[in-house]
């Protein structure tokens, strides 16, 4: 049963299932790199899913939907940023409240969109390349958003590690005092990172409702936001690793379905634990090897108050 065709379709599915996770993980990576912990991904994603769907219906243009999903994500991220940065409030709690807000707002406005059909973003089969054996199916049969996600990961990697601006973001997350002392506006950096992060998470939601499962139902993100929190850690706050991580996590679900479909008896309950257990094990390996805190920005979740030693 497990042959090249099986693996090719597994990999293709993994990319599909991993793409929404990738957007959200990239967004959260950027946010966390600047020192802000936003636990509200689930709420921002569902808001993106709904906004994208609704705007696509209202305008007939799914790409406008994606754009506005990003803006909606940004709006929620702004609430988080305002509380975390300006008010210096507790970040985990604010994040959890963002989840409630997102689920609430979309549940309320989303009811009238149940059972509606929007205009969607469809896969494009890249000529010639998509007819390559196996590789064609795996790499060249996706929708534009799936490709954009990978490009975004590369851009984010470049931004974080190869530009001065990236240095400032990382400095804000590692050691805001030091950054401040050399003239970096920590609050501004954190605001921008959180907002752009929210934009990307929102797009991840829109991917679900406009490109993947092409419909809107309440709570359709179904816990993906939490998986992305694990993914950020799994990838060690590195955008390039987030790509592999997202596809791997997406693929684990798919693997469970594919094995069942071939008649292999596995417990899908136990399969669902795997991503979380794997993340913990990966974390363990990396901490044991390095004997130091694993990649986490040193000031993650700590409000920066100017002139006060942490």
């Amino acid at each position, binding site marked *: 049963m497990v042959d090249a065709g099986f693996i090719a379709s597994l990999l293709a599915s993994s990319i599909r299932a991993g793409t929404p996770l990738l957007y959200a993980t990239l967004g959260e990576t950027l946010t966390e790199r600047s020192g802000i912990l936003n636990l509200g991904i689930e709420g921002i994603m569902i808001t993106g899913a709904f906004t994208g769907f609704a705007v696509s219906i209202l305008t007939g243009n799914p790409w406008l939907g994606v754009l506005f999903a990003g803006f909606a994500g940004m709006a929620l991220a702004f609430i988080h940023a305002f509380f975390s940065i300006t008010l210096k409030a507790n970040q985990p709690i604010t994040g959890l409240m963002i989840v409630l807000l997102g689920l609430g707002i979309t549940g309320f406005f989303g009811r009238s969109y149940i059972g509606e059909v929007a205009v969607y973003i469809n896969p494009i089969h890249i000529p010639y390349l998509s007819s390559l054996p196996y590789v064609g199916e795996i790499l060249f049969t996706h929708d534009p958003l799936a490709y954009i996600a990978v490009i975004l990961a590369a851009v984010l990697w470049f931004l974080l590690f190869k530009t001065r601006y990236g240095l400032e973001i990382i400095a804000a997350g590692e050691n805001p005092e030091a950054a401040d002392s050399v003239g970096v506006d920590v609050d501004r950096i954190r605001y921008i990172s959180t907002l752009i992060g929210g934009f990307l998470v929102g797009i991840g939601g829109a991917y679900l409702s406009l490109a993947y*499962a092409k419909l809107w139902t309440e709570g359709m993100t179904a816990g993906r936001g939490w998986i992305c929190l694990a993914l950020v850690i799994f990838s060690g706050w590195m955008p390039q690793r987030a790509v592999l991580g997202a596809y791997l996590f997406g693929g684990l679900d798919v693997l469970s379905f594919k094995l069942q479909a071939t008649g292999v008896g596995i417990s899908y309950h136990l399969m669902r634990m795997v991503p979380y257990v794997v993340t913990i094990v990966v974390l363990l390996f990396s901490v044991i090897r390095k004997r130091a805190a694993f990649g986490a920005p040193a000031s993650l979740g700590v409000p920066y108050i100017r002139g006060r030693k942490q």
Partner: protein
Amino acid sequence: MKAKFLVLIILAVLAAGLLAGCAGEEGKQVTTPATTPEEKKEIKAAFVYVSPIGDAGWTYMHDQGRQFIEKKYGIKTAYTENVAEGGDDERVIREYAEQGYDVIFTTSFGFMDATITVAKDFPDTIFEHCSGYKTAENVGTYFGRMYQARYLTGIVAGAMTKTNKIGYVAAHPIPEVIRGINAFALGVKKVNPEAKVYVVWTGTWYDPAKEKEAAISLLDEGCDVIAQHQDSPAAQQAAEERGAYSIGYHSDMSKFAPNAHLTAAVWNWSVIYSYIIEQVMQGTWKSEEIWWGIDRGVVGIAPFNDAVPEDVRKMVEEEKEKYLSGEVAEQYPFVGPIYDQQGNLVKAEGEVMTDEELLSMNFFVDNVVGEIPAASE
């Protein structure tokens, strides 16, 4: 400082609470006068839902029924959604009873114990519990024999498959789902003994992306008809995109998959809700165990896709007619011989499964490929 702050909040809440409490007590006396006969006609019905109405499936269909009776009889209805089974259900049901609702519908199996408990304290209130088996003087149960519709759709699937592999995307291995799969598989077997039904569990009631992916996995393995026991139509879309066929569930899902969607096994709760409300309005209500089938229209099948050929339609109509005419038992197709996956004879030739066996069904028939998690003995 923070301590003071919190104490302040709590005091404010308590003070407001006591004030409101007094006001509430007064209010109560106004709103619940001794019921006079004329007022009794104005009945109020409350619905307790297990998931948000926006699930687009189970609760959504019940809510359609609620809206229907609200319009038809001009009665006041109320609902509470997303009520946790075992934890919050008892409080919500009790609140409705205290508020003087005449009939309270609880629409999930898990609400059974809470419904019975509250019903003991409110002997004058009518309770209707969906899909359970415990009744009382003032508690009735209701459900639909969805498996009959499943069976008919199975005939369509069995006739339309070319690969003899039919996929079934299912949520959780509970009896209702298993019963549906088996009835569907028996329908398949009736017209196509060679075909097998492949089951994939998603482990979730509504996660459209996963449901779609599960359907794709089945399509990748060569299934060319996809059926589902999930809330959203995502699995239908997967079939549509791959040029395969699909069988919907809950409602007519053809809008989401105009080419793939052959038919669907659909709910129409308004039939039962209308019946119960009429009984309550006329004062003739008594505790019943309503388990109606396709003959009463609680369940049914959606209009056929053009792709379904005439002979298949005819076959389905003939089988449906057997229910309408009473030629077969309500439990049909669960009439022997029925074999399980291991080939054991579960029901001998001509024997009919009892309702209790149906309600607690926990095995797959012999043309199903898939596993049910085993309970330890």
